[in-house]
């Protein structure tokens, strides 16, 4: 067992006893075989001294139990690392950023507390998975969609708080952006409700995001200022229909018009679905050029017109061709999704992605796990081409001249207004291989930083590295985060180090 830094064995033993008193013996895990379940299967430091590991885990069932655990931890200075369902694979899984932390496993807080069909929102606890929320809606025959990521076994709250996204319409697929109001247990056990939830008696906690005064919800996104125990989400009323079109350009010059047109159509709210950009034009993958799928959700007669408008805009690009798919009517509550569709685009959570991945011509010897490097890029065709060429130019050097099985770049257009240039790094159980992958990852972070491309999300072991790339004015943002951390959680017990924010007593360790 890895004891938390600076914590005596006596204090740790006392803390576990306090946790047991709060949640019951069976929900405190300290044996090696139980704590092993909280290892990060995709740790790039697997089996090495630097692997981030927990010392124990505690799983409360109620907010009151969370408070009791947090109060005990605060008194005894025990670092806690909250997780929701622990499915954050590729971003650290359920392992803490700071080794020796006690994982605060919130999977038993798994209640869908309220759903309002008339104004399309839900209030949930952290242990509610996308499956849970979907099933809850289906069982009640509500005409609402959720927005599941790929895959759908994770926590609705956990995914939102880590900066995750899904595959239906904007704004719902920006999971943090689609939240409305939260409840948080602070480091001293106090409870805060944000937005309208701070005013007793209001009925609008999930209907108005802003409330009154400074808006603090952002402190809890990729943050460590408290333990989020409830969160509201705006849901999508089931759209009547779905339609999609594909625009193709034959060369890199066409990418400029392609992306500008996409931006126009999204900013006009003519295209609301999760668009998909692929390298390769009319000749398919590997051919010169680019293709872009533009899905639209809404009433059938409206989206037909929207797609026709989109087509007219794309066809103004020199050499652009545009094809339309069949319009698909969506199914009401309790009915199966239309056959042959990608389920996540229709709000249906699933695990199929796991059964699809394996050896491929692009990845003949896959390692198993992966971590991602996901820099944000300007949404312009010139930058798209520039990033691709930059990747190709640096690929061999960054990998030390070896073929490490790194995949990239995959361009994600699912966030509005910006692009993500995703590079996937395989993770294995071989320390020597992982060492080379780490060197390549760190090299890419530095190469990209020089170009002004920095990440929006990172695996736990690289959260410090990426935080350092947000360095304007001598790291003023990090310094501000630290001031807030010191004020809100002075003993620094909540998620030490998460996204590069360390409490005072661990900053120089």
């Amino acid at each position, binding site marked *: 067992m890895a004891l938390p830094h600076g914590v005596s064995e006596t204090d740790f033993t006392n803390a576990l006893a306090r946790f047991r008193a709060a949640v019951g013996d069976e929900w405190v895990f300290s044996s090696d075989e139980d704590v092993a379940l909280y290892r990060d299967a995709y740790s790039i430091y697997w089996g090495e001294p630097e692997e981030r590991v927990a010392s124990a885990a505690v799983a409360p069932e109620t907010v009151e139990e969370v408070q009791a655990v947090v109060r005990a931890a605060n008194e005894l200075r025990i670092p806690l690392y909250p997780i929701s369902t622990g499915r954050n694979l590729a971003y650290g899984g359920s392992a803490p950023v700071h080794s020796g932390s006690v994982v605060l496993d919130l999977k038993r807080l798994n209640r869908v507390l309220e759903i309002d069909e008339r104004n399309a929102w839900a209030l949930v606890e952290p242990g509610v998975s996308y*499956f849970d929320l979907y*099933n809850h809606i289906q069982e009640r025959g509500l005409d609402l969609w959720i927005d599941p990521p790929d895959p759908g076994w994770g926590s609705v709250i956990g995914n939102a708080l880590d900066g995750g996204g899904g595959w239906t319409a904007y704004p719902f697929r920006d999971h943090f952006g689609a939240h409305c109001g939260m409840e948080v247990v602070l480091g001293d056990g106090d409870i805060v409700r944000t937005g309208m939830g701070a005013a007793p008696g209001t009925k609008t906690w999930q209907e108005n995001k802003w409330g009154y005064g400074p808006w603090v919800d952002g402190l809890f996104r990729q943050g460590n200022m408290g333990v989020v125990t409830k969160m509201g989400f705006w849901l999508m009323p089931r759209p009547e229909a779905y339609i999609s079109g594909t625009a193709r350009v034959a060369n890199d010059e066409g990418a400029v018009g392609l992306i500008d047109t996409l931006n126009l159509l999204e900013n006009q709210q003519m295209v609301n679905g999760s668009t998909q950009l692929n390298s390769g034009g009319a000749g398919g993958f590997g051919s010169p050029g680019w293709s872009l799928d533009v899905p639209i959700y809404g009433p059938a007669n409206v989206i037909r017109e929207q797609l026709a408008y989109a087509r007219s805009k794309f066809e103004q690009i020199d050499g652009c061709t545009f094809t339309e798919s069949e319009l698909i009517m969506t199914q009401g509550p309790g009915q199966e999704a239309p056959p042959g569709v990608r389920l996540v685009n229709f709000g249906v959570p699933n695990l*199929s992605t796991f*059964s699809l991945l*394996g050896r491929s011509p692009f990845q003949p010897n896959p390692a198993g*796990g992966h971590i991602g490097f996901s820099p944000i890029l300007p949404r312009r065709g010139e930058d798209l081409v520039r990033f691709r060429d930059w990747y190709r130019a640096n690929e061999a050097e960054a990998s030390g001249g070896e073929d490490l099985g790194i995949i990239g770049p995959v361009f994600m257009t699912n966030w509005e207004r910006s692009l993500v240039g995703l590079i996937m790094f395989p993770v294995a*159980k071989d320390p020597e291989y992982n060492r080379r992958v780490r060197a390549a990852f760190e090299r890419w972070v530095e190469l990209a930083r020089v170009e002004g491309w920095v990440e929006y999300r990172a695996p736990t072991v690289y959260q410090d590295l990426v935080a350092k790339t947000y360095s304007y004015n001598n790291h003023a943002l990090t310094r501000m985060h630290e001031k807030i951390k010191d004020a809100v959680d002075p003993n620094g017990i909540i998620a030490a180090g998460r996204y590069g924010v360390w409490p005072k007593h661990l900053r120089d360790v």
Partner: protein
Amino acid sequence: MGVIYDSRHGESRSFGERASILNLPTHAIEGDITDLWQTKLRALWKQAPVTVAGLTERPALFLLEQLGWDHGLRVVYQAEHGLNTGNDAEHRIIRSARPGLKRELDAAGAMWPHALAGQILTDTGEVTSNDYTPSGTAMASYLREPTKLHSWIIAPRSTA
């Protein structure tokens, strides 16, 4: 105990057929476990940590093991079966309390799925180990290898 098999593989279908003969409830998958999880296991495990066994590709085990952890279940038996071009297979026992299992499977030749079902579904207590640490599959890879099947038992830790 419920039994999961992957209907895309003849070996796995044979295993499932044998399970049916043993009067065990079976569920066919085609790689993806979503339907199994949504229509059966989710509700079943919410009520009680019921033992399940299977002969599937690796991703199904990867997912079911991790989903089982939340219900106090662990992988207590696991073997890997490399599918050769002939009818036999290369068996590698990864976690089992039964010392002679590989020999018995080797001896069964092409009938190994039947032999496997006979060994692990009828003498479950003899085959399961007391090793409750996460399996190498859960901690290593979700990627499919169509030329390999995994047999496994996921059971409650306390009674395994």
